[in-house]
């Protein structure tokens, strides 16, 4: 049968492969190459070796963005997952209104980052107006604003995944734990959480990568203000490319560094949590 299928490569694979090559593989390879060049368009590239990378690492804005992104990612990954799990746990206990609550909590996830950013700009500036400041007065406001926004957006999404995980646990397991005299808390930590580790893997992966790569929300909520202090990596790369003449190569080098960090983070996280998953 393989033989019969094999001849149909051109029909089944080629269309996707052409689009994938043109719009992913080629831009990716060119991107790596250009990170070692000075250029303003792809045709006038001139090899400069590691100069762009040196400039990137000694660029204050970039290092600041990196640090801001790391802090933001840590806080948002932890808060989103803890709250989402609590919500999921509570909303699988059969309380009244469960379905309505699930529907409501998930909704913000469907709204795009740009729109979310402006919704929260209104909310946060409204509160801060009472103290005579705005979200761009201090980088602290921007940081916590982004954290709140991100929680609001992703809690419902992660909650849905945790609920699916909890509902997949065989009822007998929890019953058996109860008969053996386990308290609710013990059942939670010894049965429920180990059994939903595959959901934890996915949720950590999604929140980690989404937080680290955040762009739209950052652009709409603060656009990096005040003075680029709240710019995350993706936004810093964008402004290096499009708002600073002659720095395209540095922008591309920053993008490569960004990609390497995302890759390492994702793989490390998958490796560690996959190990903790229970085979069922």
């Amino acid at each position, binding site marked *: 049968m*393989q033989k019969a*299928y*094999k001849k149909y*490569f051109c*029909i*089944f*694979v080629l*269309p*996707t492969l*052409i*689009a994938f090559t*043109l*719009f*992913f593989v*080629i*831009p990716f390879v*060119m*991107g790596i190459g250009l990170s070692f060049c000075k250029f303003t368009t792809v045709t006038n590239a001139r090899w400069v070796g590691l100069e762009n990378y040196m400039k990137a690492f000694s660029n204050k804005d970039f290092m600041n963005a990196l640090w801001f992104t790391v802090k933001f990612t840590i806080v948002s990954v932890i808060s989103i997952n803890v709250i989402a799990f609590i919500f999921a746990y509570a909303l699988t*206990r*059969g*309380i*009244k209104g*469960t379905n309505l609550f699930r*529907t*409501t*909590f*998930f909704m*913000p996830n469907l*709204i*795009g*980052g740009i729109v979310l950013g*402006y*919704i*929260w700009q*209104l*909310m946060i*500036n409204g509160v801060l*107006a009472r103290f005579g400041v705005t979200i761009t007065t201090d980088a602290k406001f921007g940081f916590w604003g982004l954290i709140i926004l991100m929680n*609001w957006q992703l809690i*419902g999404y992660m909650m*849905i*995944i945790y609920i699916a995980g909890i*509902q997949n646990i065989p009822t007998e397991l929890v019953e058996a734990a109860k008969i053996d005299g386990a308290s609710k808390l013990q059942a939670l930590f010894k049965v429920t959480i180990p059994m939903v580790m*595959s*959901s934890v893997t*996915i949720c950590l*992966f999604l929140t980690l*990568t989404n937080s680290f790569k955040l*762009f739209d929300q950052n652009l*709409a909520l603060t656009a990096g203000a005040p003075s680029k202090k709240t710019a995350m*990596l*993706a936004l810093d790369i*964008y402004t290096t*490319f499009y708002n600073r003449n002659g720095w395209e190569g540095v*922008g591309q080098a920053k*993008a490569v560094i*960004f*990609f390497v960090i995302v890759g390492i983070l*994702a793989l490390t996280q998958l490796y560690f949590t996959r190990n903790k998953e229970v085979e*069922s």
Partner: protein
Amino acid sequence: MAGKKKIQEDVQTMEVSKGTGTVMTVIFAVLALVFIFPIILVFINSFKSKLYISDQPFALPNSDTFVGLSNYIDGVAKTGLIKAAGYSIFITVFSVLLVVLLTAMTAWWLTRVKSKISTVLYYLFVFAMIVPFQMVMFTLSKVTDMLNLGNPVGIIFVYVGFGAGLSVFMFAGFVKAIPISLEEAAMIDGCTPIQTFFRIVLPVLKPTAITVAILNAMWIWNDYLLPLLVLGSDYQTIPIAVQYLRGGYGSVDMGAMMGMLVLAILPIIVFYLLCQKYIIKGVAAGAVKG
């Protein structure tokens, strides 16, 4: 996991007592209100004069501040939102259809044909999933410029290429769970591989296709940077039109902004309420495999 990804609805593992249940319902009702409050706030402010929005967003409109629909009319005129909605719908619908069809075909072939090429290609698609857009944004926009694809039709192919990674990965996960005997029987009955795929495999993949379609639609509908760089300023989608209102430094027309936010959110909420079962199930099913 693969065999029993069926999500049991409302199977309670450990129910709480009635009293605790009521308390929890009340707590979650309050939380739910907190969750939708920002959206309600935008809605309320969309009827207020732009002068009263930034300073007193929490005040209800009164006879001085109420401006009727003028924010909506201003906003639509300033952003060309009607046209933007047209582009957004066109691009999302056709990109999603093409992505789902093409990547299902690709994933099936890559899973069924065991060879070096299929393994290499599969891992290449998986690899593409973790590459951030910033890595390719500049070069991608140059490629689309060179190929003259900076229009609503061209961008569909860009989405097929850039979205292929996740979609192929998800389809491949589910194709592995389909018993091959079905396809063997079809072959014996004289089906060509194309007939086998469309008559046997695709119907079985329908739930996965819905999941992949939902995830791609959520991404493409809300996408900002890719259409901005590929389409330029000639064709604005909804997120681009909203961001466009910001204009130069600090010169945001808050009234128009509120109106546009409502118009941007409304179709999503209506769509969500109509197909929430599919969306929530799709997201959960997608995650089980991820």
